[in-house]
């Protein structure tokens, strides 16, 4: 017995060291899982209050900048409130189609001559005509995504803690379950997508920002609707992200806007993410490597909005039960489904 105690005393340092390292590593490795108890993060009541106080103090020194941001935000909203008179005016002539060379096709004057075409060609021609005579075949994605959410207000929130240069970055917001925030809600700002709520306490919430290596946002290129997925490769800087799963045959243009596709129910469709800054296609890869410049400047993020999500659990559980697919397969399938649609 005495030997045992002597042994324990002699090696107390090593044993305690191993024990504490195991505990710390356990906390570290389980950090990004959602099941984690909500207490040990910056959204817990004590740390939340502390960080909120700090923000109150530092805000004082940034009042001018904050006001400018809010004013710009306001101006944009007001523009939507008072649209110019001619916004809803429609063209007073019949819509005209154009052929592949850009010349106007007077199809309403000279109906297509079906007898010279093969049945397949006829089908294509009919399809083309349908495309060309309907000026906006693609529905307005903004309205489509928000039709159910129009009645649900965005929850405005203030960022009280923010990290930029770690591998997985988080924000802390000053709203919590008392304000109706739930885990897995999307967070956006005036400039674009910010992140996704991970844990909430009564008055604070922790958000995995776009700068989190495990966060993927379903996205599409606004110009042609090509879908992909935006992620942040660990260790890159806070103003850029990567757009993955764009098939290499799809045409890309530097400066293309990339918006959310609404395929995962966290964000409504059509929220701005960023613009294409550069892209490369390599001969041995199926997908282009696309670098995005993020719309949100995470280094000066102040006011954000938590997106309320209508009950979408049904859709998610349906999609999950029909098989968990890996992201590229999912993207490719969605692409195929999109192509099939007339």
């Amino acid at each position, binding site marked *: 017995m005495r030997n045992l105690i002597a042994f324990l005393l002699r090696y*107390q*340092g090593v044993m*305690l*060291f191993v024990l*504490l*390292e195991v*505990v*710390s*590593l*356990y*906390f*570290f*490795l*389980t*950090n*990004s899982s959602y099941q984690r108890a909500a207490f*040990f*993060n*910056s959204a*817990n009541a004590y*740390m939340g209050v*502390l*960080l909120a106080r*700090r923000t109150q103090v530092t805000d004082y020194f940034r009042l001018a900048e904050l006001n400018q941001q809010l004013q710009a935000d306001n101006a944009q909203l007001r523009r939507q409130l008072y649209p110019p008179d001619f916004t809803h005016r429609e063209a007073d002539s019949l819509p005209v189609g154009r052929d592949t060379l850009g010349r106007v096709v007077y199809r309403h004057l000279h109906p297509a001559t079906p007898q010279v075409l093969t049945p397949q060609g006829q089908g294509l021609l009919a399809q083309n005509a349908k495309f060309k005579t309907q000026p906006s075949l693609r529905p307005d994605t903004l309205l489509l995504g928000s039709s159910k959410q129009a009645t649900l207000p965005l929850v405005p929130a203030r960022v009280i*803690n*923010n*990290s*930029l*240069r*770690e*591998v*997985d970055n*988080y924000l*802390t917001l000053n709203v919590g379950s008392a304000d109706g925030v739930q885990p897995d809600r999307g967070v956006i700002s005036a400039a674009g997508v910010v992140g996704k709520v991970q844990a909430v306490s009564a008055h604070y919430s*922790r958000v995995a920002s776009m700068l989190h290596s495990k966060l993927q946002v379903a996205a599409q290129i606004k110009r042609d609707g090509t879908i992909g997925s935006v992620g942040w490769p*660990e*260790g890159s*800087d806070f103003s850029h992200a990567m757009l993955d799963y764009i098939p290499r045959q799809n045409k890309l243009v530097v400066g293309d806007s990339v918006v959310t596709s609404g395929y995962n129910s966290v964000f409504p469709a059509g929220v701005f993410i960023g613009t294409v800054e550069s892209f490369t296609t390599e001969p041995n890869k199926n997908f282009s490597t696309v670098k995005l410049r993020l719309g949100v400047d995470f*280094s000066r993020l102040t006011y954000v909005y938590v997106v309320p999500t209508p009950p979408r659990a049904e859709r998610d559980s349906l999609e999950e039960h029909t098989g968990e697919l890996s992201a590229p397969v999912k993207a490719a399938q969605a692409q195929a489904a999109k192509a099939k649609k007339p």
Partner: protein
Amino acid sequence: MSIVASIGTQLLRFALYVGLYVLLFDNSSVVLFGLGWNFFYLGFLLFLPINTPISLQLLLGFALGFTVDIAHDTGGLHATAAVLLAYLRPWVLRLLTPRDGYDAQDTVNVHQMGWQWFLVYLSLLVTVHHLAFFFLELGSLQHPLVTLGRVGVSILYTSVVMLIVQLLFFPVRRGRG
């Protein structure tokens, strides 16, 4: 110094180092070359009395790291690296023992122990801590050059800040602090 007084002093130091780190040296605002940041709070561990028992050091290291982890949402990352530093500190101190051993009054103080002793002590511990921290954070050896760059810049930054703390706040004369 009585035990109560020394515990009080250490608690105050803990609060000061952690408080300043969390409230002021937020790693998104005070960054050197856009790469590395300083680990100001390590000063609490580095400048503990030389004869602190190892178990107490380890527990303090864990408490320190975990507090910072909660503020920065890093789970147990800071704690892991801080416990490693707390474990290695007695070894480094033993390695650097002066020829006639440590005096009872000796503290980790650049004025008392000399520049050479202090710089070796600081750079050894800070290097090990930062290497562990940044590679653990990445969870892989994928971007070795960028990570080594961050480690290097952060070592420089932390060491300079620790030196400044020493020169500003540590007594020049022996035996007063």
